[in-house]
C-alpha cells in the first residue's frame, strides 16, 4: 500500500472530518433520551403538566439531533470497507462483529422505538410511551458502549492473535473487556451526559436571559445543573484514571500528550509542561514552561514515580506530538473550567440567584452556560484527537500501521468524496442552525396551553421558591 501515500492521508482526513462531525449529534441524543425518560417519569409521577410540555419541547430538538446523527452515522460504518479495506480484513473477525452487535442491539432498538416516542403520543398509553422512550435511551447508550468496545480493541487488541494478517478471536471476553474498555466507555458515556446537560442548560439559559418563560425554563436549567454537578467533577476523576491507564498500556501516547522526552531519573519527579514546542528531529522541546514534579504526581500519584519519555521509544513509533500536547491541554483546561462553572453556579444558587426574579439578571452566569455547550463539544473533540491521533502510527495498536491499512483506491476518488463530504456537512450545519433557531424561537408552545395552566403552575412554583 506504500504506493498510495496520498490515499492514506486523504482517507484519514475523510475519516477525521466525518467522525468529528458525526459525533456532535449522537452524544446529545444519548444524554437527551435519558433526560426525556426523566421528564416523562416526573410527569407520570407528579401529574405536573409542565414536565409533559418540557418532554414535547425537548423531543422536538431531539428529532433534529437524531436526524443529523442517523444520516451522518451511516457513512461511518461503510467507510471501514470503502477506505480501510486492509484494516477491515485484518480486524473484521472482531471489529466487524462488534459493529454487527451495535446494529442489532442498539441502533435497531433505538430506531424502531423512536417512531413510537416521536409520533405515538396519541396512539399508545402513557406508560407504554415511557417504555418506548426508555428503549430509545437504552439503545442510544448501548450504541456508545459497543462503538467504544470496537475502538478500545483498536487501542488494545487483546483476546486473540494475528494469523496471516488476520485477527483470530480466541476469547471474546478478553477482547471486549480489555483493560482500556471500562475507563473509555465510562469517560465517553459521562461525556455524553455532561455535554447534554450543557446543551439543555445553554438553551434554558437563553430563555432565562431573554426573560422568556423564565419559571418554565428554570425547571430544565436546574435539572441540567443537577446532571452537570454530578458529571463535571466525576469526569475529572475518570479522566485521571484513563490517563494513568494510558501510561501503562500506551506509554508513548502519554509521553506525546505531555511532550515528555526524557524519562525522569530515579528519585526525581517528571515535570508537567504548561506550554512547550516539541522538535521531533532533535527529540527535545525547543522551549517549555514547566511545573517540576507534577507529571509524576498526576501519572503515578507519587512524587518521583517514573514516567517514560519519548526518547525511550523509536521515532518511527511517535504519534504527532504537538497536536496531542495541545489537544490534551485544551480538554483538561475546559474540563477544569466546567468544575469552576459548577462551583460558581451553586454559589449563586445558594444566594438566591436562581429565583424567577433574580435569574434573568445573572447575565454573566447565563452567558457562561450558553458558552459551555460548544465548549463541552470542543472538550470532547480534543479528547478524541488525543485518543486517535495519539494511537498513530498504528491503526491496530502495535500490530497494523495506518499507512498499510487503507484501500488501494486512487487518491482522486478520495479527494472527490472528501470534498463532497465537507460541502454536504457544511450544509447540514446550516440546516441545524436554521431549524434549531426556528424551534427555539418558536418555544415550548406554553401560550397554546388551555387557560395558561402551565404558566399558573409555574407561578405557584415561583411562589414556592421565593
Amino acid at each position, binding site marked *: 500500500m506504500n504506493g498510495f501515500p496520498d490515499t492514506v492521508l486523504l482517507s484519514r482526513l475523510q475519516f477525521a472530518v466525518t467522525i468529528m462531525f458525526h459525533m456532535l449529534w449522537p452524544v446529545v441524543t444519548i444524554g437527551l433520551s435519558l433526560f426525556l425518560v426523566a421528564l416523562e417519569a416526573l410527569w407520570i409521577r407528579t401529574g405536573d403538566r409542565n414536565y409533559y410540555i418540557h418532554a414535547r419541547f425537548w423531543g422536538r430538538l431531539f*428529532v*433534529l439531533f*437524531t436526524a*443529523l446523527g*442517523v*444520516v451522518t452515522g*451511516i*457513512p461511518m*460504518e*461503510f467507510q*471501514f*470497507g*470503502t*477506505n480501510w*479495506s*486492509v484494516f*477491515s*480484513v485484518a*480486524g*473484521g*473477525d472482531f471489529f*466487524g*462483529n*462488534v*459493529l*454487527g*452487535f*451495535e*446494529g*442489532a*442491539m442498539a*441502533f*435497531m*432498538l433505538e*430506531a*424502531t*422505538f423512536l*417512531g*413510537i416516542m*416521536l*409520533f*405515538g403520543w396519541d*396512539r*399508545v398509553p402513557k406508560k407504554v410511551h415511557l417504555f418506548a422512550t426508555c428503549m430509545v435511551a437504552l439503545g442510544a447508550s448501548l450504541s456508545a458502549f459497543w462503538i467504544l468496545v470496537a475502538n478500545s480493541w483498536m487501542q488494545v487488541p487483546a483476546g486473540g492473535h494475528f494469523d496471516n494478517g*488476520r485477527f*483470530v*478471536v*480466541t476469547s471474546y471476553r478478553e477482547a471486549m473487556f480489555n483493560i482500556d474498555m471500562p475507563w473509555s466507555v465510562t469517560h465517553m458515556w459521562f461525556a455524553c451526559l455532561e455535554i447534554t446537560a450543557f446543551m439543555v442548560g445553554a438553551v434554558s439559559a437563553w430563555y432565562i436571559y431573554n426573560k422568556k418563560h423564565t419559571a418554565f425554563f428554570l425547571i430544565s436549567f436546574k435539572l441540567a445543573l443537577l446532571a452537570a454537578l454530578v458529571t463535571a467533577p466525576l469526569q475529572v476523576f475518570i479522566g485521571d484514571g484513563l490517563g494513568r491507564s494510558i501510561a501503562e498500556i500506551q506509554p508513548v501516547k502519554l509521553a506525546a500528550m505531555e511532550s515528555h522526552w526524557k524519562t525522569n531519573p530515579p528519585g526525581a519527579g517528571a515535570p508537567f509542561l504548561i506550554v512547550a514546542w516539541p522538535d521531533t528531529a532533535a527529540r527535545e522541546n525547543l522551549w517549555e514552561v514547566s511545573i517540576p514534579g507534577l507529571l509524576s504526581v498526576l501519572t503515578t500519584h507519587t512524587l518521583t514515580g517514573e514516567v517514560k519519555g519519548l526518547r525511550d521509544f523509536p521515532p518511527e513509533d511517535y504519534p504527532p506530538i504537538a497536536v496531542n500536547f495541545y489537544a490534551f491541554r485544551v480538554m483538561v483546561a475546559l474540563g477544569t473550567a466546567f468544575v469552576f462553572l459548577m462551583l460558581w453556579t451553586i454559589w449563586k444558587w445558594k444566594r438566591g440567584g436562581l429565583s424567577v426574579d433574580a435569574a434573568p439578571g445573572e447575565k454573566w452566569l447565563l452567558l457562561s452556560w450558553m458558552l459551555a455547550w460548544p465548549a463541552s463539544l470542543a472538550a470532547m473533540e480534543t479528547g478524541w484527537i488525543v485518543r486517535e491521533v495519539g494511537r498513530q502510527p498504528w491503526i491496530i495498536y502495535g500490530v497494523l500501521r495506518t499507512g498499510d491499512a487503507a*484501500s*488501494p*483506491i486512487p487518491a482522486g*476518488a478520495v479527494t472527490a*468524496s472528501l470534498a*463532497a463530504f465537507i460541502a*454536504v456537512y457544511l450544509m*447540514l450545519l446550516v*440546516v441545524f442552525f*436554521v*431549524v434549531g433557531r*426556528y424551534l427555539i424561537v418558536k418555544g415550548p408552545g406554553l401560550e397554546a396551553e388551555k387557560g395558561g395552566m402551565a404558566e399558573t403552575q409555574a407561578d405557584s412554583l415561583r411562589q414556592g421558591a421565593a
Partner: protein
Amino acid sequence: MDTISPYLPDIWLVIIGTLLLYYVVADGYDLGVGILSLFCRSGQERSIMAGSLKAVWASNQTWLVLLGGMAFGAFPIFYSLLLSSLYVPIVIMLFGLIFRGLAIELSGHDRFKAFWGPAFGLGSLVTALAQGFAAGALFGGLDIVQLRFVGGMWDWLSPFAVLAALTLLACYVMLGANYLILKTEGDLQAGSYRTARRASAATLVLGAAIFVWNVLRFPYIRERWVHPSTLFYVAVFPLLALLAFSLYRRSLSRSDSLAPLLWSALFVVLAFVGLSAGIYPVIIPGITGHITIREASAHPATLAFMLVAVAILFPIILTYNIYNYRVFGGKTREGKYE
C-alpha cells in the same frame, strides 16, 4: 457446535441474505415512495407520502446498518472488497441516504420547505440507482486478483449494471406503489394501483433479462441449467417467483390493499433467491476468478459466536418491529404527524 461448524458460512450466507432482502423490501418501499413523490401533483400529496414513512423509515434503514455490520463480521473479505471496489456508487448512495433521511425527518418544518420535497425525491432516486449499479457491478463480476481489486474506479458503469439499476428502480417503485395502496385512500390510492401495474410489468421484464444475462455470462451457471441433476435446484425459485408474481397481479386487479405489498415482497425474495442460487457458492463473481463464501468468511469461532448472538437478538428485533407496525397501522392522512 462441531457438527454444524462446516456449514457455518452457509448459515451466515442465509442470514446475510435475509437481512439484505428485508432491507430491499422494507427500505425499497420507502425509496419507492420517495421516487414517486417526484411525480406528485400537489404539496399535500407529497406530505402524505413523507408522513406515511415517518414512523418506519429509520427502522427500515437500520436493516442496512445491520447488514453492513453483520457482513463485516461474517464475511470481512466480501465487505471490504465489495465496498472498496465499488467506492464511487457506494459513496453516492451514502449521500443519497443523507438527503433522503434528513428530508423525511425534517419535512414537517417550515424552514427550507422548498428544499425538503426535492431532497426526499432525488435522495431516494440517487440511492436506488447507486444500489442498482453496485448490485449490477457485483453480479456482473469484479476485477479481483488475489483478493485485491485491480479494476478501475468506473468499472461499475457497465451495460449490465445499467440494466440492474433500471430493474432495482422499477422494483422499488413497484414496492412503493404497493405501500401507498396500503397507506392511502382516494386519488392517491387509485393512482398507486396504476403505477403498481406498470412498475411490476417493467420489473418482471427487466428482471427476466438480468436472469438470462447472468446465466449466459458465467459458464458454471449455464451448466446447471442443462444438467438434469441441477436443473431442479436452479429452476425452482424462478418458477415460484413467477407464481408469486401472478398472485400479486391478481391481488392488484381485485383491489386488495395489503395483499399486493405482501405478494410483491414474496416475488422479490424468490426472484433474488433464484438469482443467488444460480451463483452459489460464489459470493463475488470475478472476471478472472471467483471468490467463494468459504474464502470470504470469518473464522468459524467468530461465526459460531455471532450465530448465538443473532439467535437471541433477531426474535426480539422482529417482535418490536411488528409491534411498531401495529401501532402505526391504518391510513395516513395529512396532519396526523406533527
